[in-house]
């Protein structure tokens, strides 16, 4: 099936009409088939239920998280897709960074368990009612949640790891045979610094 570039007018209009039921919600078309929705955090479950029950939004394709350290907030984006309307809805909410707790939507969308567990691991955000908040991908990690903006990966790495010499003696042997580092950084960089 080939989709038209933008949804028929009645689809976008009825979707916007439906969304008006949620108080404090703002919509913005980010593209012909991409609808951005900003809403207060406490109304998100109502929105999801509305979309799932009455507009065929059965697919939660991702939850993404953005850290806003200066505003002391986390932004959560729920990406939802309807196979009937063929319009992507991106629901943005903001929650305070401290204590960083939000509700799980696992009861509405089971795949949320994975996204929430992932966000918990990477940002330290806790989802109440999510079936498992244990370690997920970073099973060997016991440092701070690494995707938070204040986590300084470079400093952590410098502290944790050691490096080997880039020009060890045996390299001369290889260079004598015509191998080794053929293009040095200073050959490429304009300022000629190594």
């Amino acid at each position, binding site marked *: 099936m080939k989709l038209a570039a933008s949804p028929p007018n009645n689809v976008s209009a009825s979707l916007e009409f439906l969304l008006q039921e949620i108080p404090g919600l703002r919509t913005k078309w980010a593209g012909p088939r991409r609808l951005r929705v900003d809403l207060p955090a406490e109304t998100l479950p109502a929105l999801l239920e509305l979309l799932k029950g009455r507009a065929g939004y059965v697919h939660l394709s991702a939850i993404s998280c953005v850290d806003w350290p200066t505003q002391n907030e986390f932004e959560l984006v729920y990406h939802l897709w309807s196979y009937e309307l063929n319009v992507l809805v991106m629901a943005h909410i903001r929650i305070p960074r401290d204590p960083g707790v939000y509700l799980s939507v696992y009861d509405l969308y089971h795949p949320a368990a994975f996204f929430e567990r992932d966000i918990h691991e990477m940002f330290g955000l806790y989802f109440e009612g999510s079936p498992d908040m244990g370690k997920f991908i970073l*099973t060997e*990690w016991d440092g701070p949640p*690494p995707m938070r903006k204040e986590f300084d*990966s470079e400093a952590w*790495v410098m502290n*944790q*790891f*050691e490096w*080997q010499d880039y020009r060890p003696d045996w390299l001369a042997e290889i260079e004598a045979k015509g191998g080794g580092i053929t293009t040095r950084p200073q050959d490429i960089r304009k300022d000629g610094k190594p």
Partner: protein
Amino acid sequence: MSTLQSIPVVATKAEKPSGGTGNLLANVFDELTAFCRSRSLFMLHYCTGCGAIELPPAMTSRFDMERLGIQPMVTPRQADILLVTGYVSTKTLKRIILTYEQMNSPKYVIGICSCTVNGGMYWQSYATAKVLADYMPVDMYIAGCMPRPEAVISGLRELMANIRAGRSDNWRDYYRRYDHYLGNQQRLFGENWQTPTDVIGEARHYGQFGPETLGEHTALLERHQTPLLPFEMRLGLGGEKTGVENKGDKR
């Protein structure tokens, strides 16, 4: 490798602790072993990173490693070369060490890609180990991001020449300096890190026990080590509970 002295004699002498009677035929036999060894390499490619993408052309008809006597192998127990192709995350490193320790000696490790040398472009990543040689002895690095099949093959040929000349015996280093490698592993994985392989026992068995095999890190290992027990075999007879349960039953 142009003079006779630089070929195998020195290294092969070290290989046999009991020898030293000046029997010339013994060296001939060792030389033959080294030749055969270098000509029949089974390679376990642990495809950790993007560098693995250059291996299929190197292995298949385009560049055809098999004409050099190098073949892919599916299990660590039957492989000679461990090919680590790319960045090594901390999580993967554990598995690589387990794999490496299961391989039979003599074994060779090749680090393909710049990422195995010094972290490559993942140098500031919190989740990747930087220097592969800190955790196991590496025989050959093939640097590049990613190295082309020609480079892979020339690296492998170099390794073959090294094996032939008896110069590539870094696997002994793992036994002789086990404390050093274990220390680096513990630093990354925590002090209760333990593998199911008894490396110290193997070092004794192979006659590779050295002054640096034991040290403070192996002492730490002994303190945290849970004894390795043989895997218990259970046969589910007469309606006894077996290890395997039907998942549907649980609810």
